[in-house]
């Protein structure tokens, strides 16, 4: 318990403020996680204390001395019974924990609710491609490295990978689910509390595994709908001369080969969609918070910002760099 107490304290502490914490309990399943974790913690702490108490009692009972002669076996009859009792107790504890785990898991499984919002997430080295699916194809939204979810509404997320194995993990909302090339997996979330959360790839996926995060915003339904409507709008035309310079650069140079900006000729599909990049909380899949300075840094040399990512160093002239950043900042 000496060791477990600080652990428990930390768990309580973290539960208050972590935006990437397994004890957040901000989703239906992660709420169940907390009660199950507590049950396990208490039961295992009980057994640990039992073992340590027995150990301490055993070693302080009779100190040996160097000249002690070894003893024969014997005088241990009672302990055979205690051993049987001990095995029974351990087995009972484990059975209880297995049952608790099973029922918690069965509750988490369940059918996919019909009213669920449908999202398809495709993992790439090292970013998340996100599509909000809609029966009307024109109403499909594409974004990257972020999820907006209405509070209390089930969300069904279909998971695919374009390259290696990744793992989708927003600890405050639910446990992880791997994305495996050649397979389609899925996960259902029910966010319970509004807030800003952070998810992160949880399966080692190569050089920039550390920089493959996902911003999650859980908000009221109205705010979510407003966001959804805004995401459906194409990009506005550039308004200032500086932004026009940037617009022209993006449409005529390397950028548009990989990136998509709806409402413009840029329609590349292999890199994050930029149509509403300025409305996101971070860039480079959570590498930096969104800001003008970080946009400059990223575009000037993506390879120094996140070494090894698939966006090449282009070498923009200063006026081109100013223009591109100015234009991207208009993509709210």
């Amino acid at each position, binding site marked *: 318990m000496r060791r477990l107490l600080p652990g428990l304290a*930390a*768990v309580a502490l*973290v539960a208050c403020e972590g*935006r*990437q*914490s*397994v004890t957040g309990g901000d989703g239906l399943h992660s709420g169940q*996680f907390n009660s199950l974790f507590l049950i*396990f*913690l208490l039961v*295992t702490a009980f*057994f*640990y204390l039992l*073992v340590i108490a*027995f*150990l301490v009692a*055993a*070693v302080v*009972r009779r*100190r*040996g*001395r160097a000249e*002690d002669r*070894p*003893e*024969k*076996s014997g*005088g*241990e009859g009672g*302990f055979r019974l*205690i*051993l049987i009792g*001990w*095995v029974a107790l*351990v087995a009972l504890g*484990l059975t209880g*924990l*297995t049952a608790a*785990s099973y029922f*918690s*898991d069965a509750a988490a499984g369940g059918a996919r609710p019909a009213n669920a919002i449908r999202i398809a997430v495709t993992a790439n080295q090292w970013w998340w491609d996100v599509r909000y699916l809609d029966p009307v194809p024109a109403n499909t939204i594409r974004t990257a490295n972020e999820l907006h979810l209405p509070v209390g509404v089930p969300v069904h997320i279909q998971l695919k990978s374009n*390259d290696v194995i990744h*793992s989708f*993990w927003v600890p405050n909302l639910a446990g992880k689910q*791997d994305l*495996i*090339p050649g397979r389609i*997996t*899925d996960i259902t979330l029910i966010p319970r509390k509004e807030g800003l959360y*952070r998810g*992160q*790839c*949880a*399966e*080692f996926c*190569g050089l920039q*595994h*550390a920089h493959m995060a996902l911003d999650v915003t859980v908000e009221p339904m109205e705010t979510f709908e407003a966001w959804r409507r805004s995401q459906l709008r194409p990009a506005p035309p550039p308004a200032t001369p500086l932004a026009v310079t940037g617009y022209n650069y993006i449409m005529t140079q390397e950028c548009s080969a990989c990136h998509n900006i709806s409402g413009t000729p840029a329609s590349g599909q292999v890199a994050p969609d930029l149509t509403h990049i300025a409305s996101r909380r971070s860039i480079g899949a959570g590498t930096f918070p969104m800001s003008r300075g970080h946009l400059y840094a990223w575009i000037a040399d993506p390879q120094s910002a996140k*070494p*090894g990512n698939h966006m090449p160093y282009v070498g923009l002239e200063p006026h081109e760099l100013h223009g591109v950043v100015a234009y991207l900042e208009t993509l709210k």
Partner: protein
Amino acid sequence: MTVLSGKELPRDGVKLSGEALHYRLDKTWSRQPGLWGWLSTVDHKEIGRRYIITAMIFLALGGLLALAMRMQLARPESGLIDPDRYNQIFTMHGTTMMFLFAVPVMEAVAVYLIPLMLGTRNIAFPRLNAFSYWIYLAGGILLWVAFVLDIGPDAGWFAYVPLSGPEYSPGKRTDVWAQMVTFTEIAALAVAVELVATIFKQRAPGMTLARMPLYVWAILITAFMVIFSMPAVTLASSFLLADRLVGTQFFNPFERGDALLWQHLFWFFGHPEVYIIFLPATGFVSQLTETFCRRPVFAYSAVVIALVSNGILAFGLWVHHMFATGLPRLGYSFYTAASMAVSIPTAIQIFCWITTMWLGRPRFDTPFLYVIGFVVTFVIGGLTGVMIASVPLDLQLHDTYFIVAHFHYVLIGGAVFPLLGALTYWFPKITGRMMSEVIGKVNFWMIFLGFQIAFFPMHISGIMGMPRRVYTYPAGLGWETTNLISTVGAFVVALAVLLFVLNAVTSLFRGRIAGPNPWDAAGLEWATSSPPPAYNFAHIPLVSSRTPLWDERGHLPVVTGLRVDDRELLLTSVLDARPDVREPSPLPTIWPLLAALATTAMFVSSMFTPWAVVIGSLPVAAALIFWFWPKEPGLPPEPVIE
């Protein structure tokens, strides 16, 4: 009892004992001095020593990598190590610790101790033993030379496909990893076969299965586990090499291969591997508890049954590494139950050790401190293991620092602590001198406390959402403090390991002379001088209890009649160790080394062209032919007469 036939050959016995016998046996069993003799030796003690020292060097190297990682993670967004190097470092750390330290060191200690504990003169298949060491050494050198040349593997010690496949890991890095696996698997399998044969057929007369020391039981189970689990990873790494080098598609989902096949094969080996490391450590704990509590371990048969069931259950758990892959949920329940069940045998063993302490009179010499440190630490690792056997808990904690904490509690607490205790305990047997008790005790407290400081906070880092295998992390997620504490602890552990090495080296020259049985222990390995002569025992001991040196104090009965002019072993029957046949033991030869070199050349060049397998097999075949060249027929086999 005399094992003999009436021929006029020189044998040990009443007519030949003492100095004269030592002279004759020494002449027969010693290797020739000098480099050639050193390279061609087949003495299990010499090879065991080399194996132990090499494995400890790899422990130190792996530990340096751990320090590098802890330096990088001490603060957020650190630029100390770039991601490419970091990924190589954590891959090398895991690979070195699992393949080049943990499994080999456990087998190495067994290679040294088992023949002595059984009262025989050499291990079975001693030339294979020499071959095994050279192959292991070659695999380790291959990996580390590659790392120094910046072609160290970087796809993790688990090398999941498709990340480790031809498309996402171009270059030679993963080939080096996969081929290193082949080397170490061959080495491990060879030793496992030797150990099983030695334990089954070379026990001293009278040492029935039920009288074997518990450590021997642990090694027997471990050796069988190696034999059943290692082929899975050898197959997996061969598939991977074939995918990478000759264009097969075993793991390519777009050509009807399967990415999850790798995980099944890898963990079918990878989970039992944890027990391959842990069971020998429980053997150490049993021996140390017996000696330092001054009585036989409580409930011998319960401990043996626990070992056997651990060995079997360990093969039914591998899917608990794959709960997040989306396999059917019903199947998961089975693996949850199995993973929970595996803690029952371990709980039995823990109970039996503590009961032994209760019934006995514990003596707090350094080795026994490690036993106590083991229980206090390992049980935490076992209990966090129970937590992550649960699917809902594992789905959150999987691949976080909670897991890193869990398996270091299990592997360092459960295996390295007993190993350090065991090395302190058997050091006098191996070197003839005692390690310093004072330094040893300081050393224990440093490593015990340093370990808790380094690894306990990792539980919290993981609960706070910190994933594994990240080369850096952002500030503001609350991970800074716990990571800094872990780094401080890691340095304390490193200092403690350094102190252990210093203690060992100084004790080697200045330590107190030990004598044959400094701890007044009960096993046969303490019945011969420290260090033992080349032939181990002048006369083969005769065993009539589980604790022969305690029950036959000062007059251990022996059997006589083995030849002294030729290397001869006494083989006994499997169950009750009745004298069976007398068997010649092979002479030293250089061919295992040459065969290992030829195999190395073949394996290394096969990373560059598949033809190397065809052409390279010719020198290997040639070396094997000379290795197995039949000896001139000696005397006709003689019956064993009781």
